[in-house]
């Protein structure tokens, strides 16, 4: 008998059926992963049986022989307390900000009725999840820890009372690529060691492969396909699963055919960016130090690194929307001024695209006004009719129908909004696009389509791309070369296939291993 079993689960919220006919099992010591796009109902299916969402569940859910649906609220709370542990996506919001790590861990340990743990016990628990200097950590508050450390504390708290089932809802999505693998490995170890059953929720197939025993693929509130992970990924039965697998970038897929780059376009020479330290303290934060990168015509350069490595700051400096405090940026050998001093012709040649597609469109403007904004400033010679004609062409260039012109950003999906943002970026015929995590916030299928679109634009128009990302596998699909950043410095550059094949620097090795 399985430890946890869901049969024909349906979830309704406010009279609307959002999840239907979900069945899955989790065995002790094994991991079942639910994957699907955002809004596919994967979190609802996991959390609703435990009363953790506003929805009502119907169907049968059996945990360790008890039917959760027939028990009353008090008994349900009791089961939740004793038998289950939860790990959520945002480790900072999931930890109580005013309690020290030790206090949270103590509360978690005692939730199932065990005696007050000694300080040594607590330190051991932290050590078990791979935190250095555990004794010191016990007295720290969550905001002092890094994202990866917080997630380790979350995991320590989730298993502190010895649960039988661990439910992890996107446990690694908010973390850097290199940390993801570490956290997933930790979860694997704990599972093997304590015989935990684990139910994992993720939108990213790549991050659960090699960790999950069973795979459940969900789409639009229904289970599309289910089976052992290896079998599903090797020979997917359903079209949706096939598309999902094809959309997930991996390092071992065929080398993509890209356009041959021409002469040198942009070069940064010893570029540094410093910010004044926030608050009253004096001093500076050096976000970028002595950065040399080059981009040729029709070439795409991947700028890769963890969060806080300075890659976005460097990208913004090149795009003319962030400061440059040292060094210079050369365009075809000629220095170009920074930020506000940059002329309109230079602005026309370099355009940015951002991570959050919805936030990068003014919510009050219609798509037509958004897309033609660069033309109004950079091409004052055009009439209104010509501008609108170009907007139509730019939309069709990013595969959007003409009737999107009159829509407002609220009515666009993430992928559509990102297409509009790309249309705005390419409408004035730039030569370089700075793409700041342009696909990271999108669902895998949508992200893959945007990647395809970018490759097409590059092949057709000879655009150069600066592709800022933490995902090496995605970068490999469209980039010629790669530059790896760490703590503001460029630590490795070279041909992307060569670097992935033989990473020299430890940070690069970690990033490659994590993909």
């Amino acid at each position, binding site marked *: 008998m399985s430890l946890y079993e869901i049969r024909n689960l349906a979830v309704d919220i406010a009279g609307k059926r959002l999840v239907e006919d979900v069945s899955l099992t989790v065995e002790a010591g094994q991991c079942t992963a639910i994957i699907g796009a955002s809004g596919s109902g994967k979190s609802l299916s996991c959390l609703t049986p435990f009363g953790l969402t506003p929805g009502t569940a119907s169907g049968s859910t059996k945990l360790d022989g008890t039917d959760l649906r027939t028990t009353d609220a008090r008994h349900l709370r009791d089961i939740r307390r004793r038998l289950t542990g939860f790990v959520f996506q945002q480790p900072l919001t999931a930890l109580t900000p005013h309690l020290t790590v030790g206090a949270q861990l103590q509360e978690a340990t005692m939730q199932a009725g065990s005696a007050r743990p000694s300080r040594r016990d607590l330190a051991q628990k932290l050590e078990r999840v791979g935190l250095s200097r555990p004794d010191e950590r016990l007295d720290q508050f969550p905001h002092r820890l890094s994202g990866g450390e917080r997630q380790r504390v979350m995991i320590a708290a989730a298993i502190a009372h010895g649960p039988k089932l661990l439910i992890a809802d996107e446990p690694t999505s908010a973390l850097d690529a290199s940390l993801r693998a570490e956290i997933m490995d930790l979860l694997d170890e704990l599972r093997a060691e304590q015989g935990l059953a684990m139910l994992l929720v993720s939108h990213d197939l790549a991050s659960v492969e090699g960790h999950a025993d069973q795979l459940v693929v969900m789409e639009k509130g229904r289970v599309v396909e289910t089976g052992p992970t290896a079998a599903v990924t090797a020979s997917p039965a359903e079209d949706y699963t096939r598309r999902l697998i094809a959309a997930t970038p991996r390092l071992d897929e065929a080398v993509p055919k890209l356009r041959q780059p021409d002469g040198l376009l942009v070069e940064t020479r010893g570029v540094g960016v410093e910010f004044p330290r926030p608050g009253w303290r004096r001093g500076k934060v050096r976000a970028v130090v002595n950065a040399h990168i080059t981009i040729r015509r029709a070439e795409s350069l991947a700028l890769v690194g963890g969060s806080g490595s300075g890659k976005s700051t460097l990208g*913004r400096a090149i*795009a*003319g*929307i962030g400061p440059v405090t040292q060094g210079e940026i050369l365009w075809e050998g000629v220095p170009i001024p920074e930020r*506000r001093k940059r002329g*309109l012709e230079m*602005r*026309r040649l*370099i*355009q*940015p695209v*951002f*991570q*959050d597609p919805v*936030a*990068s*469109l*003014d*919510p*009050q403007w219609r798509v037509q006004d958004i897309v033609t*904004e*660069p033309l*109004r*400033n*950079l091409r004052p010679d055009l009439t209104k009719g010509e501008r609108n004609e170009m907007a139509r062409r730019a939309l069709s260039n990013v595969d959007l129908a003409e009737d999107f012109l009159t829509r407002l950003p609220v009515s666009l999906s993430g992928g559509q909004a990102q297409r509009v*943002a790309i249309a*705005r*970026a390419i409408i*004035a015929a730039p030569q370089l696009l700075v793409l700041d995590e342009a696909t990271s916030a999108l669902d895998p299928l949508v992200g893959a389509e945007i990647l395809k679109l970018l490759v097409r634009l590059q092949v057709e128009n000879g655009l150069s791309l600066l592709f800022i990302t933490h995902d090496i596998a995605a970068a490999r699909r469209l980039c010629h070369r790669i530059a790896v950043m760490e703590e503001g410095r460029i630590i490795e550059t070279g041909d992307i296939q060569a670097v992935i094949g033989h990473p020299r620097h430890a940070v690069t090795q970690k990033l490659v291993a994590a993909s």
Partner: protein
Amino acid sequence: MAGSIPECGKGEALLKRHFPLVLVLVIVTLALLLPFLLPWSYDQINWDAVRAPAFSGSHLFGTDEIGRDRLARLAAGTRVTLLVAIAAALVSLIVGIAWGATAGWIGGRVDEAMMRIVDGLYALPFMFIVILLMVVFGRSILLVFVGIGLVEWLTMARVVRGQVMALKQRPFILAAEAAGTPSMTIILRHILPNIAGVALAYLMLTVPQVVMVESFLSFLGLGVQEPLTSLGILVKEGADDMDMAPLGLLLPGGLLVLILVCLTIEGERLRDRFS
């Protein structure tokens, strides 16, 4: 939720939900129309009916101690009070947005300096300054404006500055910069439309505050000049004569409370929606 309201009852539901606003609009309409409907003007004295009780002849609410029609004076007082309130609120809106948006957009030292000025003005004993102004320059409705305007824009400036600083970091503002949009255009076309909701909410909350301040100044005898009147003056006159004619206090007092409560409810609703 909105879908559950049947089509035909939509207007009715809206009316019910915004009952306070509707009530204020009714009061304003009455205050504007009554001078044309009543046989008496607010400064006209009926020597035959001094201290007339309510419902006597053409005086619906009676007359005051020198024979002026209470209803006409109530309408006139409401007009003046709301006029002062709306004008002062608009002035505070314009000054506050200009100041706050400038400080938030430029940032750095300029922002520091501008916001310290705001803090300094906050610290001034406002009543004391208004009384000084009145003593030096004499009573005038203009000074009431100046006095009220001096304080009411401060909150608006702080709110707007915070909003602008948050918006400035948003990618669509950066995209506009990359598209070569001049700073002034970014402020006018991207930033102001996006803070309009919050600004409107605070405007709604400023109006009752100004009504309060104006009435208080008038009650102290520092407001508008006789025979022109305002709700504050009417409350004061009524309070002087309350043992003889309680209606003279209850009517303007009740109206004042009604207007204040209604505007505050609507303003807070708006604020909750936008923040």
